[in-house]
Structures are given as C-alpha cells and as structure tokens.
C-alpha cells in the first residue's frame, strides 16, 4: 500500500505543474544531501556541521567546467565524475586534520571548514565570480538527452537518489558499516579490536563528501546559476536537523525529515514569518516527543521491504 502510494506519487509528480516539480526537486536534493551527511553523523557518529562545503564544491565544479566563466564546456557525466573525485579529495582533506577531535570540537571545526570554503568562494572573484556567482551555466545532457527543464531534472534526481540510497544502504550493511557503528558506539574499543579508525572515518568523510558533491552538481545544473548565498551555514544546520528529526542513521528517516522541513514551509508559504515560528516550535515538540527521530534506527529499509512483501 505505502509502496504503491509512493510509486504513484513519484510517477505522478512530473505531470503536476512545474512548481510542484521544482519543489520535489528541492526535496530530492535535500534527501540526497541528507543521505550523504547521514553517513558521517548517523553511521560513524561524527557531528559534521560543515557539510554544505562539499555541496558547494560540487556546484562550483559544474559551474566552472560548464559555463563561459573559464570558457569550458565539458559534458555533464564527465563533470559528475570529476566532481565526485574533487569531493572525495576535499572530504579527505577535511577529514585528516579533524580525526583526532571529538564531539563538539569536531562540530565547530567542520563548521569552520564550511565557512572557510564559503568565504573563499565569495572572495576568489577571478575564479568564482565572487558574490555575483557564476551565471549562464550549460544545460546538462546525457547522451544527447537534455536535462534542463524541471521534469527532466526530476527524473535524473529520482534515478540518482535511488542509486545512492541503495549504495549507501549496502555500505551500511557491509563490514565497513559495522565498523562505523562500532566507532560511533565506542571509538577506543573499536581500535582495540583492530579497526583502523582513521581509515574508516576517512572512508566515511570521503563517501559523504562525494555524495554531497554530486548533489551540488545536480543543483548547479538545475539552477544554472551558482553563488555563495546558496551555501551558507544554515544549510548545513538544516540538513543535520532533517536527519535528527527524521531519525538518525536511517535512510527512511531522512526522507521523512526532509519532507517535514522542506515541504512544510512551502505549504505554509502564505503565513510568512509565522511559519518559521511554527517550524521552530514544531521542531522542539518533535524532538521532545521523539528524541531519536520519527523513524527509529531499527526500522531500516529492510524492515520496510520485509513488511511490504509479507515476510
């Protein structure tokens, strides 16, 4: 039932008006970001408040390689690969210095990292266009199929989100995912059983950064304009919130969290400031009622699948 409804919704959305498709696209991008960040926060238990940096890296990679800014016009798929690599490298670069840090110290350093990236984007005018950003990005296309209109981006996002979610889910179930869980529970004990926590954490940072970066590419390709404004600190916080409200460490939870935090303000658009107040209060209530998220960690995709197919 639920599955049918979900599929119906997914298929029906592109036939609605473009506004809804755009809203859905925004939602899907946040889901993608949530899945990426959740690897670091939900699986490995590292509080990363600078995730938006990777998102920015991906977006700017696309902007620089497919716009008049540098006169480059590389194909979309190639840029996705490049951005994934750049993202992974940035992830490792951030990961390396912060591995020794715990909890709140990690949070503030990642936050600082995110801010540093944003400030650089805002000030390296010769490269990034500074606050003006980069406009007139190429339309994306894959093997001749153009991906520029909201519906086209929508299908691209659906495919990417499903693929990434499956990948990340399998990752969680693998021995690496178990190691992340162990690090989250007790990092020192994890070392004591022979887990190279440095490598495992770097793997988490790199994967998460890669996903963030890919989300950035798609975001840039759909907006066809990037500027530092889109990568403010609040975005990172919003993604963390999505994860926690929905259910830490759980892909389904992210979908729910994103739906609440992204769709609700859209639905309540008429109420201007009151909706933000409402959202703030709702957040408090939700967290008090369900401190570890609406969807519990144990209710993962496998439970859903098992529930759906009656086994």
């Amino acid at each position, binding site marked *: 039932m639920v599955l049918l409804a979900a599929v119906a919704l997914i298929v029906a959305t592109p036939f609605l008006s473009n506004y809804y498709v755009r809203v859905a696209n925004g939602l899907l991008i946040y889901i993608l970001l949530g899945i990426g960040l959740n690897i670091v926060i939900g699986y490995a238990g590292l509080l990363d408040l600078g995730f938006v940096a990777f998102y920015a890296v991906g977006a700017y990679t696309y902007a620089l390689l497919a716009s008049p800014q540098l006169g480059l016009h590389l194909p979309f798929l190639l840029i996705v690969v490049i951005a994934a690599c750049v993202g992974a490298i940035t992830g490792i670069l951030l990961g390396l210095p912060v591995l020794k840090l715990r909890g709140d110290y990690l949070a503030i350093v990642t936050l600082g990292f995110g801010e540093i990236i944003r400030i650089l984007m805002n000030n390296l005018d010769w490269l990034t266009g500074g606050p003006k950003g980069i406009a007139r990005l190429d339309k994306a296309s894959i093997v001749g199929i153009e991906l520029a209109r909201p519906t086209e981006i929508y299908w691209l996002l659906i495919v990417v989100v499903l693929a990434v979610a499956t990948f990340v889910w399998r990752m969680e179930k693998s021995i690496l995912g178990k190691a992340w869980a162990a690090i989250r529970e007790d990092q020192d004990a994890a070392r004591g059983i022979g887990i190279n926590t440095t490598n495992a954490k770097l793997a988490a940072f790199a994967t998460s950064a890669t996903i963030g970066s890919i989300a950035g590419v798609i975001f840039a390709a759909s907006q066809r304009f990037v500027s530092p*404004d889109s990568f403010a600190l609040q975005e990172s916080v919003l993604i963390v919130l999505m994860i926690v409200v929905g259910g830490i460490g759980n892909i389904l939870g992210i979908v729910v969290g994103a739906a609440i935090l992204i769709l609700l303000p859209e639905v309540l658009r008429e109420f201007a400031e009151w909706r933000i107040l409402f959202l703030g209060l709702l957040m408090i209530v939700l967290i008090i009622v369900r401190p570890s998220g609406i969807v519990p960690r144990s209710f993962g995709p496998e439970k859903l699948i098992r529930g759906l197919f009656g086994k």
Partner: protein
Amino acid sequence: EDVTIGLAGPISGPQAYFGTTWHNGFKLYIDKLNAAGGVNGVTVKINQQDDQADPRQGTLVAQKFCDDESVVLGLVNFNSGVAQSTLPIYEDCTMPTMTFGSNPALTQQGYKFMVRPVANDFAGALLPAEYALQKLNAKSALIVNDKQVFGQGISEIFGKNFIAGGGKVLDTLSIAPTDVDFSAVLAQIKSKNPDVIYLGAVMPQLALFAKQMHEQGVKATLMVPDGGYTPEFISQAGQVNVQGATVAVQAPPLDATPAIADFAAQYKAKYGQDAGPYSIYGYAQAQILEAVLKSAKGYTREDMNEALHNVKADTAIGQLEFDDKGELKVAPSYLYKVEGDKFTLIGTK
C-alpha cells in the same frame, strides 16, 4: 475582467522592511485604480509572495507565477542576487517582469521579457564620484564594501568613475556582511587619511560604520549608496555622527514635487507610517502598469510584454520609458547630504 500581477520580494527576514514598503507603494496606487473601476473595466489582482531575499525561494516563487496562467506580469525581486536566478525562469515562460535588482549585469544577458524601472548602479555611483571630485575637491578615496553582489558592484563602479575623473583610490577594504564592529578597519583607514570613504553596503552597517567612524575621529566624508536613504540611517548612527554624509539614490525627495508629496501623504494615511525608501517606486510601477494596460492589445503575457517595452508612462517621478535592453531611457538619480535630521538634495542627474 481582471488581470493578476505577481509580487515577489522579501516580506520576512532582515530585508522585510524594504520589500513590504516597496510593495505597499504599488498596492496603494492599485487600490485607488481598482476603486475607480480599473483600466478600461479591467481590475488588477495582486498575488504577493515572499522570496526572503533568498535565490532558492525566489526560483520557487518564479515557478509558481509561471505555472499560474492568470499571472500576466511580475513585479519581482528586490535583490539583484535573487533576480539573477529567477530571470531565466521568467524568460522561459514568457512572463514579463519589472525587476528591481539594480546590478547593471542583469540587463546585459539578453533577456527579452524584463525591464528595470529604476536606475542601475552605474547611475547610482556616477553622481557621488562627480560630486566628490568637483564639489568636495577630493583627491583620494578609500573604498569599503561588504562583498555582496550589490555592495561590491556599486563600489567598484564608484572606484572606476572616481579614477576616471582624476582621483586616486587608496585602497579597497572588505567587511563581512554580518560585521558590526569596524574599529579595526577604521584604525586602518585613519592611517591612510583619505578625503572620502565610499561604503558599498546596506543598512544597518551604513549607520554603524558612520557612527564608529565619527567616534574614532576619522575626518573623511562618508558616501553611501541607496540603502542609506532612510531616517534610520540618521537615527541609528546618531545625528552628530552622520552630518555631511552623502546618500545617492534613485528616489526623489518626498517633498520634491507636489505629486510625490501627495503620494507621501496618501501612504501615511493608508499605512499609518512614513513611506519606505522604495515605496515611491512601487507607486510609479503601478502607474507604469496602468499605462501598459491602457496600451496593451490583449492581456496575454506576450501582449503585456510588448506593451511594457513600448510604454511611455507618466508617473509621480516623471515620464518613464525603456530602451531595447529594458533599461530606463532616462534614469533619474539623486544625491543627498545629511543635514540635521534631514536629507538635503545636493545634486541630481
């Protein structure tokens, strides 16, 4: 019969004041218009949306207007940064817009469906540079900007004009848009001793800077762009701290002509507070709309667009018409000086 106009601007958040008062100016005239039976029997409906000065929200609003068949014209986006993202969307759905963002680049991207009913920043930064060189006999200027689209853009133009006129720009310093403490920057400036300081930023930074500048004993003349054209600039800085500072803005003084004074009185009567710095533009835009409706062949988006590009409107701020890029043919620009608790007009172009 009626037509719907989409209004998008910051209605919540820190820039809400600008957005609401601008829109209120528009509504003020439209209400009068509708009350009088509309234009040729056509009344105007308003669909007002909040873009929070955020490009992402702006694009959603743009899409919403595009999807809504009944919306035939947009009065959109106070901020250049937002307009930058939304204009392609409006272009795609052939929606004519009157854009408020003042960054010169907006009209240079070949958009066919936009006009800009205000002076762009070229105009906004020319007057002060000339004034500084000719009236103040300034030899050197120092530029401070907030590294935002508007602040950086307009201060760069000021710099170019100032140098072109024979002046010397000593240095360009940047501040973060959230800064409130400029003491360190000012200490720096003091040692350079410029004749004028051009500050490309918005309120409340303009006021804070003016205040601290005076308190730290920096003697240069402060020149600021249009964001400073509000009584808050004087009250928040403290009257003594802003004497002599100049403000360049596209708006005429509220008592400049009888038409404007009349507008100001109506505004105050209707909303119970003084008109905002951009309210007069909202009002004038409504008058442009009136002219468009009069001359349009029909009320489709295409027809409206054609009429908009060819309009000659008599407004409270004079007769307005657009060139082929959508820029005002004659864009009035005014320069004021703070004297006491008032802005005194010292130049116009």
